[in-house]
């Protein structure tokens, strides 16, 4: 089959699913809707596999497939085509999107079985997949932007899916507006890229980069990178625009797994990795990205420790892990960033689905203080969640270990990294181990605090299959990116497949520092020890019912209150940004709109009415009057002609 056809099919299947379910959006037949939706994404996954197989079949240096569907915009020097680019980066992305996506669709069938509008849900989910594919496959920034906006829209629709609940609808709006702020910056960045390079196609930008690097003046590029990064902070929930992601948990849990953990929120990482060559020319922005990433990772982790809502913990964990990825990108470790993106997609999707399974079993109860001891009721969920837990805290040989370790190593050793950032990263890793163990302990272990009238049960097969598959992936997914250090000691010297695969498109920063292999071993062991210690402490604290946590929080006093209330960031935004904005808008409305613009328009309309009142006597229906006007006009014309002759 031709590439064009394959690409078209890749897009058409989710679109057809969207249309099919969208047209019958009132239907309550969740099985039909779910099967169609899942089949659409599954078909896309198969096509993705075929496409990636084709890509592998190509020569190593020339692994890219470009498909031009049609000319889209062509104005003067500016051109943006509806063309798509499949190269190693987007190959990884489409496999994650369609693969994890189809698992989550499958999970949703069971999860949404009691819902009022399953068809609507699946149509939105398919639309999301379509837009996400557009985002990662677009060969220029504008197509990417279309997908970028599209996923934002689907995110909004799905967060506010239960829109009858005021709070959930508000959460959707918050996500949308926060994203819009980032999107505006993204657009500015896009314009700057166009003014700098005269093109927005990735391949052309890449080919223009060496010349730009030689010219030595990186000011405009730095600016473009900065604005694109601000756009990425919106979509990928980084400081200062991360506030929407925890609220986004108002949506159905599979949505949180798909959009707000595995795929959409990683779009920012994807964007920066895609433009890694350009970012390498802007070291200042790289540093900013690293700092923002590290801070986000740290603060989100501290908040996660104090939360009691299972989904909120996972949400802050996601923010924190995304911060990790930005830290990686910031220090020039693009491949580890992609690697972590992938492993995170596996284990975080797994944990969200697991939490969905728990919530489903607990009849929409999300507070982990009211859980506990679920291990015996939900063995499969517990076991898969256990794998996710081990993966995220970084126990070898599960997926998270390799990616997290590589990020920390790059932070330590890269010329763009620093020891301070490494310390923050390491502390975050420790805290991650702590809060994740706390989550495990309070949910699955210890004694049951489940209320009498709730009877937890294991979820149906359609929900456990995705959990098992994702559990397997979380376990072995990391093996494609085993660092050189470890593979050195392994039998057969398994190479770093992912790095090799991405090498033609993305290159990590050169490690030129004095750090040696011994350093790497020391660092790795140190973090491992700390992580295990933290996990053990958390286990002792929460599974064994200790009074230490409350003592600790008492000892910390105001700090603890601050953390529990998420550092009052939402309150700060409300009082210092949103309310002044609202007040200013009210002022503008009252003084500019009502008292000025409206009055001017009234004046204009009064003028028009007055003129009409004057002229309407001409139109009084008196035919003889009309005849008179005609004769007067005739006379004027005749006079003019005669005067002329």
């Amino acid at each position, binding site marked *: 089959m031709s590439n064009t056809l394959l690409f078209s099919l890749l897009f058409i299947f989710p679109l057809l699913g969207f249309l099919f379910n969208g047209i019958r959006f009132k239907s309550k037949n969740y099985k039909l809707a779910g099967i169609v939706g899942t089949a659409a994404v599954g078909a896309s996954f198969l096509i993705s596999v075929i496409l990636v197989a084709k890509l592998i079949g190509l020569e190593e240096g020339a692994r890219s497939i470009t498909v031009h569907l049609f000319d889209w915009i062509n104005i003067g020097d500016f051109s943006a085509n509806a063309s798509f680019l499949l190269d190693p980066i987007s190959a990884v992305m489409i496999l994650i999107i369609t693969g994890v996506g189809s698992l989550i669709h499958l999970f949703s069938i069971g999860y949404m079985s009691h819902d009022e509008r399953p068809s609507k849900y699946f149509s939105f989910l398919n639309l999301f997949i379509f837009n996400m594919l557009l985002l990662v496959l677009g060969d220029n920034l504008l197509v990417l932007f279309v997908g970028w906006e599209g996923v934002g829209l689907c995110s909004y629709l799905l967060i506010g899916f239960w829109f009858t609940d005021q709070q959930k609808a508000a959460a959707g709006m918050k996500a949308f507006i926060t994203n819009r702020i980032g999107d505006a910056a993204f657009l500015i960045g896009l314009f700057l890229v166009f003014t700098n390079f005269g093109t927005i196609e990735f391949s052309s930008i890449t080919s223009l980069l060496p010349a730009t690097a030689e010219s030595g003046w990186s000011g405009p590029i730095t600016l473009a990178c900065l604005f694109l990064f601000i756009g990425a902070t919106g979509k990928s929930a980084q400081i200062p625009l991360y506030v929407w992601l925890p609220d986004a948990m108002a949506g159905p849990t599979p949505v949180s797994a798909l959009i707000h953990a595995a795929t959409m929120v990683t779009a920012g990482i994807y964007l920066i990795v895609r433009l890694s060559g350009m970012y390498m020319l802007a070291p200042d922005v790289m540093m900013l990205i690293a700092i923002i990433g590290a801070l986000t990772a740290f603060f989100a982790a501290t908040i996660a420790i104090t939360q009691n809502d299972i989904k909120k913990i996972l949400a802050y964990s996601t923010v924190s892990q995304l911060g990790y990825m930005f830290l990686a990108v910031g220090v020039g470790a693009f491949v580890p960033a992609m690697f972590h993106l992938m492993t995170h997609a596996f284990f975080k999707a797994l944990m969200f689905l697991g939490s969905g399974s728990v919530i489903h079993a607990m009849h929409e109860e999300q507070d982990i203080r009211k859980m506990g001891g679920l291990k015996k009721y939900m063995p499969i969920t517990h076991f898969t969640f256990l794998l996710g837990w081990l993966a995220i805290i970084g126990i070898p040989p599960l997926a998270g270990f390799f990616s997290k370790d590589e990020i920390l190593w790059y932070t330590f050793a890269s010329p763009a990294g620093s020891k301070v950032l490494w310390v923050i990263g390491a502390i975050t890793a420790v805290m991650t181990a702590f809060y994740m163990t706390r989550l495990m302990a309070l949910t699955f272990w210890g004694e049951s605090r489940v209320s009498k009238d709730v009877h937890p049960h294991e979820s149906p097969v359609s929900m456990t299959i995705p959990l098992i598959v994702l559990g397997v992936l979380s376990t072995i997914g990391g093996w494609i990116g085993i660092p050189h250090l470890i593979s050195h000691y392994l039998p057969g010297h398994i190479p770093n497949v992912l790095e090799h695969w991405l090498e033609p498109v993305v290159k990590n920063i050169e490690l030129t520092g004095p750090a040696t292999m011994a350093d790497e071993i020391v660092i790795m062991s140190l973090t491992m020890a700390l992580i295990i210690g933290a996990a053990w402490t958390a286990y002792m604290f929460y599974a064994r019912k200790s009074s230490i946590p409350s003592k600790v929080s008492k000892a910390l006093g105001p700090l603890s209150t601050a953390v529990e209330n998420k550092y009052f960031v939402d309150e700060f935004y409300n009082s210092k940004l949103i309310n002044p904005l609202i007040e200013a808008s009210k002022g503008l409305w009252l003084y500019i709109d009502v008292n000025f613009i409206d009055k001017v328009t009234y004046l204009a309309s009064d003028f028009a009415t007055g003129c009409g009142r004057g002229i309407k006597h001409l139109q009084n229906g008196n035919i003889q009057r009309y005849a*008179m006007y005609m004769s007067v006009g005739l006379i004027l014309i005749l006079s003019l002609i005669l005067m002329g002759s």
Partner: protein
Amino acid sequence: MLNFESLAAIGLNHYLIVSAALFCIGMVGVLVRRNVLVILMSIELMLNAVNLSFVAFSHFSQNINGQVMVFFVMTIAAAEAGVGLAIAVTIFKRFKEVNISFFEQLKG
């Protein structure tokens, strides 16, 4: 028979002036009278004025085509009078009067 040579002193211009005057009188009638019938008569006057100029042109330019045109105008004038009077009859049946002001119902 009349002595046509004796009319030689009168040129085309004289006829045209008379025609214009007749046309203007008809036009005044259309503009100021309120009775539909009189307005129709005034229109006949205007048509006749045009006919007069046609015949005069025809006569002085030795071209009989002008008279053909007069013939057509007369036919159409007859037709117009027929329809106009039919409308007048309808108006009269409706309002028992044939005042042009009833056409003011046409206004929006």
